[in-house]
């Protein structure tokens, strides 16, 4: 039997789950106005249900009280009875596919920003400000405590009334319950602070009220941290003590355990471990909690592979494994496992595009799966075109946009030729994966590589497509995904043409060896700039990274820039924000970089051995220019149809190899990221 541990059912209170894989609560940022789960929200979870997941806990940090701001992450609003009806629809929908659903309920205390509706005065045990969210808060009063305990109970009743299978009370990520637990945020001297017993009082009263509200048979779990990683915070031993005492109340049906605190940028980055962290970095902490409790312990964090999950379960470290980001990347994991199609699983690589978007208040999207949370319009499973005739589709460029175009077109049943200039597919992702601790980016390519092979795309590697080659294929549709080239010639004075500066691509591709003393100019502030700096420093170079942005890697999200900064300081890379690169000139065998301060216009010079430019890309348009006039649609995408996720009107036209349609996707139009490139292709090609 394969995966015997995963497919051993487990009981949580009265629920029997068919397998041990679930999806933990996360902020989806999909709820509609007023915090109501709408069509998009429901479809997102329905897809996981269709995919055979045993349970999802939805609504990360869904508030029970009205003094928690709901603007930023659009959680589910558990403060009102109006939420029952849409939640019931959600429950009914996923139950149809056999999945259980719970919701996370919380009061966030100081873990928010007051500046937004309802412009509250946040509460915290001692009114200590929270750093990450700039959470200014007042010291909570007994009246607030009583009110909030009542709110938890009322919210739990709503959850139960909606037909949900359970509720998870959050005491993790420094929310109000664990703000009471932690000496970092609780300096009270009354019966709510001081001794552990006092610090636990609030949480116990919340659970007592919740249990009273929902009765013995409703599933109630507790999400908790197993080590805050702060000198002045809760350590593993104390949290074990807390878990044990909580368990002994017999009010809790499961513990959902995470490692790391979350109230600083650096600890926050641990919570959803990005690719730089080792696999399952905190499972030992969850196992520690399991050693003191006798109800199931659930754990997620960096478990992205099904065999990894099986091993963790088989070793008895935890009772259920959360694979949340893994299911954002591929909601059909369990179905594929059941069907022996593991090699078709689109595996999460830990790029954290999802969570980094969430922390900036944007909806959660997957870097490699453009269908996730767009289920209403974008298919996760591409089915062959029903009536359309078999077309000949030529895709030029094997980067993410081209690979997705080829995959989707082929899945639609067409004959697909894919031209790729290099000897391997992947495009710029292959460069991105060269950066230290970014190697797993290659996992995105791996899946596309396997899928395009499996589906039978006619892949012509090492082949630079010319207009004649494209036309000789007698295409009905040509999709150009030719990407771009490093945009080092935007400023002539950078001297790229004269060899005064080289590009980040030259460095990452190892075309140019790192020199001893290097200045890297990052005009983009995304992953490539720091990645190149780290690449250089890892090979012994002394590196200064210069950017006109407010800080280095300014356009890198909340769980990724801390990783970059850990490495920046560890490698001794000098961060120089707020400077433009005006010009580079040679002086002997040295290069002189002339920097200009954004705010003072003062000039500074750096004498270095090598100047590296990361300035994104400029599109490759040559092939487009030569094919545009020969195409039926003059290379134009009908934007109204594209944005409405409808078929391109031009697809109605008769094509025959002489007369063909021409489209462009991804970077060859203008610089986009991986997700955008893939989305471009999916939304265009799904109707071919």
């Amino acid at each position: 039997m394969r995966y015997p541990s995963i497919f051993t059912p487990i009981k949580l209170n009265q629920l029997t789950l068919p397998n041990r894989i679930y999806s933990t609560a996360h902020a989806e940022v999909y709820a509609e106005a007023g915090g109501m789960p709408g069509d998009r929200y429901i479809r997102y979870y329905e897809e996981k249900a269709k995919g055979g997941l045993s349970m999802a806990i939805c609504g990360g940090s869904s508030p029970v009280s009205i003094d928690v701001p709901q603007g930023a992450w659009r959680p589910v609003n558990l403060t009102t009875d109006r939420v029952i009806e849409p939640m019931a629809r959600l429950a009914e929908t996923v139950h149809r596919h056999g999945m259980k659903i719970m919701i996370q309920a919380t009061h966030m205390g100081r873990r928010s920003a007051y500046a937004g509706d309802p412009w509250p005065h946040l509460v915290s045990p001692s009114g200590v400000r929270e750093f990450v969210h700039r959470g200014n808060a007042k010291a909570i009063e007994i009246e607030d405590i009583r009110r909030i305990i009542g709110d938890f109970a009322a919210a739990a009743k709503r959850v139960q009334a909606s037909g949900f299978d359970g509720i998870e009370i959050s005491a993790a990520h420094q929310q109000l319950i664990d703000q009471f637990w932690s000496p970092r945020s609780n300096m009270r001297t009354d019966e709510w602070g001081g001794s552990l017993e006092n610090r636990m009082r609030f949480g116990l009263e919340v659970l007592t009220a919740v249990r009273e509200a929902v009765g013995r048979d409703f599933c109630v779990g507790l999400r908790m941290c197993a080590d805050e990683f702060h000198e002045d915070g809760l350590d593993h031993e104390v949290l074990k003590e807390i878990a044990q005492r909580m368990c002994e109340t017999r009010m809790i049906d499961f513990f959902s355990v995470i490692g790391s605190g979350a109230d600083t940028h650096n600890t926050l980055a641990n919570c959803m471990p990005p690719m730089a962290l080792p696999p399952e970095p905190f499972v030992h902490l969850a196992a520690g909690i399991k050693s003191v409790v006798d109800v199931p312990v659930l754990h997620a964090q960096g478990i992205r592979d099904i065999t990894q999950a099986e091993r963790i379960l088989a070793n008895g470290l935890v009772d259920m494994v959360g694979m949340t980001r893994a299911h954002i990347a591929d909601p059909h994991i369990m179905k594929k496992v059941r069907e022996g199609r593991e090699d078709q699983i689109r595996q999460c690589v830990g790029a954290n595009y999802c969570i980094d978007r969430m922390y900036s208040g944007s909806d959660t999207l997957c870097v490699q799966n453009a269908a996730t949370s767009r289920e209403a319009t974008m298919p996760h499973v591409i089915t062959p075109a029903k009536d359309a005739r078999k077309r000949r589709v030529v895709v030029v460029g094997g980067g993410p946009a081209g690979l997705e175009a080829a995959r989707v077109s082929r899945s639609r049943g067409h004959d697909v030729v894919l031209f790729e200039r290099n000897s391997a597919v992947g495009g710029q992702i292959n460069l991105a994966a060269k950066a230290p601790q970014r190697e797993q980016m290659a996992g995105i390519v791996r899946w596309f590589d396997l899928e395009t092979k499996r589906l039978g795309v006619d892949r012509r590697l090492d082949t630079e497509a010319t207009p004649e080659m494209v036309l000789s294929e007698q295409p009905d549709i040509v999709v150009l995904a030719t990407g771009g080239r490093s945009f080092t010639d935007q400023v002539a004075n950078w001297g790229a043409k004269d060899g005064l500066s080289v590009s980040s691509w030259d460095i990452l591709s190892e075309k140019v060896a790192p020199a001893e003393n290097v200045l890297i100019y990052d005009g983009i502030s995304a992953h490539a700039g720091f990645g190149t700096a780290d690449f250089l420093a890892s090979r012994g170079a002394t590196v200064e990274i210069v950017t006109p942005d407010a800080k280095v890697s300014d356009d890198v999200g909340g769980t990724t820039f801390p990783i970059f900064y850990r490495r920046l300081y560890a490698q001794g890379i000098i961060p120089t924000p707020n400077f433009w690169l005006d010009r580079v000139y040679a002086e002997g065998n040295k290069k002189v970089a002339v920097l200009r301060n954004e705010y003072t216009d003062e000039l500074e010079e750096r004498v270095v051995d090598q100047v590296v430019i990361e300035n994104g890309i400029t599109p490759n348009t040559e092939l487009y220019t030569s094919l545009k006039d020969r195409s039926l649609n003059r290379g134009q995408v009908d934007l109204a149809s594209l944005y409405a996720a409808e078929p391109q009107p031009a697809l109605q036209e008769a094509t025959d190899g002489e007369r063909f349609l021409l489209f462009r996707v991804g970077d060859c139009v203008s610089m986009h990221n991986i997700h955008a490139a893939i989305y471009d292709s999916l939304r265009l090609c799904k109707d071919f």
Partner: protein
Amino acid sequence: MSVAVAVTVLFWVSVATLAIGLARRARLWRTGREADVEWAGLLAVPKRYFVDLHHVVARDPYIANTHIATAGGAFAALVLVAINYGLGLYAPVLDWAILLAAGVMLTGVYFVWMRRRHPPLRLSGGAWNRLPYTLAAFALGLALLTLVPSQTLSAGIAIAALALLLAGSAELALGIGAGGPMKHAVAGLLHLAFHPRPERFAGVRSTALSPLKLSNHDFGTRKPSDFLWTELLSFDACVECGKCEQSCPAFAAGQPLNPKKLIQDLVAGLSGSNDSAYAGRPYPGIPIGSHHGELSAAIVPKLIEAETVWSCTTCRACVEECPMLIEHVDAIVGMRRSLNLTQGEVPGTAPETLSNLRETETQGGHARAARYNWAVDLDVPIIEPGKPADLLLVAGEGAFDMRYQRTLRALVKLLKAARVDFAVLGERERDTGDTARRLGDEATFQSFAKRNIETFASLDFKRIVTSDPHVLHSLRNEYPALGGKYTVIHHTALLAELAEQGKLQLGKSPEARALTYHDPCYLGRYNGETEAPRALLRKLGIEVREMQRSGLRGRCCGGGGGAPLTDIPGKQRIPDIRMADARDVGADVIAVACPQCTAMLEGVAGAHAEVLDIAELAAASLEARP
């Protein structure tokens, strides 16, 4: 002394020789164990010969016609000679009749001779190669004798004719008693009379193994004399045609088994000789001439190597093909029983499986409670005492296999769609003991059967349905002898029935690829069920591209008889051969109806046809319904 009198003398001498020879041969047979014999079987021989045996022989019209001419001619001639010369009538008119019979016989012999000039590989040579000549001599002798008028008969011709007759009579009279090829005629007819499975002649697919009486210290077949005497007799009926060899999957895979050689070795054991006289193809990889048998000496390994006994998949293809209706599989299982029960010598991972069975009541060493883990989210009712269900679904060992769980889930979906009142055994289900039995562990099998029969007795159901033909065979055919009598139906038959009754509304299958159907041996040959799966596929709008070996004559997947556990090495794997059969008919999908076949065929390395259970195909059509 006239020539005619000489013939009379020769006739009676021959009869006497034959009688002595037969008596000696019969004494050998009778060293076997007592069998329940119905003497009335003797009366049934003509019907069994002309209907049941001929049904098999007629699959090869050339040899059927040849045999009719040769044997028919010889038989007629012998009867006429007995009358005309044995009784001393010397009537010329009978001579003409003898001449006619000899002519017919000679025609048949000519075709025997023709075939033996370019014999198929499966055919044994050796003593068999002299048959066209000795039989021709007999026929020619008779012809000469009757054709040439006695007045013109010169001494030379008379001597020649008598010499020919003598040669022919030696084959028929002396040869039969001495174990020559012609013994098949007498042993074959007696075998028809005393066949160990007489119900075969009543149109029953008799395939159940008979239970050992363990309390009588009956632990199977260690030495030739441990066979039933009727079995020993049956081995002498073998004509070494090699139809069994040709159909044997283990032989084809280069494993050291050849059913024909096995029977011939047992004949050698019967007569206390070695195998050097055997003139057919050997057990692959085992040279001829080094094995020797004694009636009361252990068969393994001096006469037959253990690997030979453990190579068999118990697919019964040999039995299906045997024109002499010999029961090879019974003989093999008999020997396995002895090896297992008295020596504990079982190769490969089979000992692990057997100990798993004893310790966990599952083959894979699983917790019994885990058998229906795959059904947790499907809301499948579990049968309890006092909680009746029309249908009891027995999933079998396949329930622990993730691949097979897809089939089971599809089946549950179909049962639900048809609104069938069904339940599963849940934790109560234990193995049927089928695999243990095939591996010769009769004790474990009987103990499982006893426990299962007790379990079933406590429950209230009308029929049992299973997707596992091995479970089907066990419960349907082998439990009755131990007191468990149930109506057991295979899932394909049930689904076909439900579809026929309109309870299961199947749509057209979305499967557009070329499809073939692989008959599981335990469904087809063991249970005769070849039509229901095909009917179901037709209902789904699927046209089956039949493989050359299909239906009752289907080729085994290699998964039966515990063969995947004993895992005797060969030159290639049996499922690879079967997959090649599917490739030969251009199939992209190979429909199956058995967890073993699913596992074996899916285990084929490299690109191959997709393996889908009929339940999966049917369930997919539910979604395709308008």
